[in-house]
């Protein structure tokens, strides 16, 4: 390992996590311009990936373990790709497949994941669905047909989503459903009409969805 590589590795270790140009400059005690240069060098060596930029703040994800060479599709990464409500988590679920999972599959996986934040963030994917039939098949496979239908109705009330065709809707109404399990109890009485129609409990309240609507803009 060259001396410069060792230096870069120790910087990556020191800055490990989520950073912006300002936080890098503060942590290293350098000017913002120098911090951006460091970010460029870290990216070149594979220690850094970034999101955002343009009108919003640019976030750098830094890790002493190089990002280069990581294979597979991250479920959280795919949600962030399609949804405006972004997830920042230390956990990762990587799918090793020949092709990128379509939005239908990502949505069904997110709803069945038993992770509240993942489920909420995935609601925006109802606007990316191209193949409703595929969504129904996958939802039935994961035994969450009615859950998907109910969440679609909730999402439709607050955010822009594509129209679900009647055939899929009828099929989902007749299909299976299961309890949402998040490891903690969630009470909500805001969507009782939808709950009654789809015969599943909806673990979201109106206030959550209003915040979601704000963030989705």
């Amino acid at each position, binding site marked *: 390992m060259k001396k410069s590589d060792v230096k870069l590795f120790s910087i990556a*270790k020191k800055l490990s996590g989520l950073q912006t140009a300002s936080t890098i400059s503060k942590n290293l005690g350098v000017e913002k311009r120098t911090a951006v240069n460091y970010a460029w060098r870290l990216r070149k060596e594979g220690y850094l990936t970034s999101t955002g930029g343009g009108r919003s703040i640019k976030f750098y994800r830094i890790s002493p373990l190089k990002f280069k060479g990581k294979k597979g599709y991250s479920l959280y990464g795919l949600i962030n790709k399609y949804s405006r409500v972004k997830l920042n988590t230390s*956990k*990762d679920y990587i799918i090793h497949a020949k092709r990128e999972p379509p939005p239908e599959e990502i949505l069904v996986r997110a709803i069945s994941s038993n992770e509240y934040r993942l489920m909420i963030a995935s609601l925006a994917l109802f606007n990316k669905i191209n193949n409703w039939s595929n969504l129904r098949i996958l939802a039935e496979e994961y035994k969450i047909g009615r859950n998907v239908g109910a969440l679609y109705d909730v999402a439709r009330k607050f955010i822009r989503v594509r129209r679900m065709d009647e055939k899929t809707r009828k099929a989902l109404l007749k299909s299976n459903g299961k309890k949402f399990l998040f490891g903690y109890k969630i009470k909500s009485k805001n969507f009782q009409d939808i709950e009654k129609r789809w015969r599943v409990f909806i673990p979201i309240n109106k206030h959550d969805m209003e915040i979601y609507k704000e963030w989705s803009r």
Partner: protein
Amino acid sequence: MVKINEQTQLFEIIGTELKEKTECFVIGGSAMMFYGAKEDTKDVDLVFLKKEGLEKVKKVLEKMSYRDKKELVKIFRRYEDNKNRPIMMVGLEGQRIDLFFKEIITFEMSDTIVNRVKETHEFGNLIIKVVSPEDIILLKCATEREKDRFDALSLMEKFDIDWDIIIEETVNQTKLESYLFPVYLYDFLEELKEDFKADIPIEVLRKIRKISENLLEEKLGKKKK
């Protein structure tokens, strides 16, 4: 030696051959490869929490011409008196896969280890959970191989190790079957600190030593009574 690409290919084949979703945990060098902290490993170590999952993967490996190596190579400490011996599968080219059920010799797959998993990989029907770097270090102390010390050292350099997790899990292991675990761990970390100048806080060593001493006193006290 198994490289990361070969390991991925192997998991992909197993995942395709399995008929149902099967979950397991990857530990040791294989886990380090997932984190990008190592380029190759001598063997792939998989831990199962369900016996049927282990049997299914074993069957797939047998289909792939892997053979069960009955006689254990003496790499594990205290393996002689352990009832849950791992199944060692050896491939045609000598590549080795060790299959463990719930226990890794003196170490038990506790709920806390399961909850600390941060990375999950899905290869078709094979779901692989990568244990945390702290747990990899803890598991490394169960072996007597020189290279495991280097692996632990490399992990300490590359990750910001949360030593509180190590101490908590050490105490946790004593509540399970392996009551002498802190003694082995102290021995292992002390060696790393002395011989390899590992960056282990002295306070951590003191705490583990105290836990070990208390345990030994407790055990000896009970015997005397």
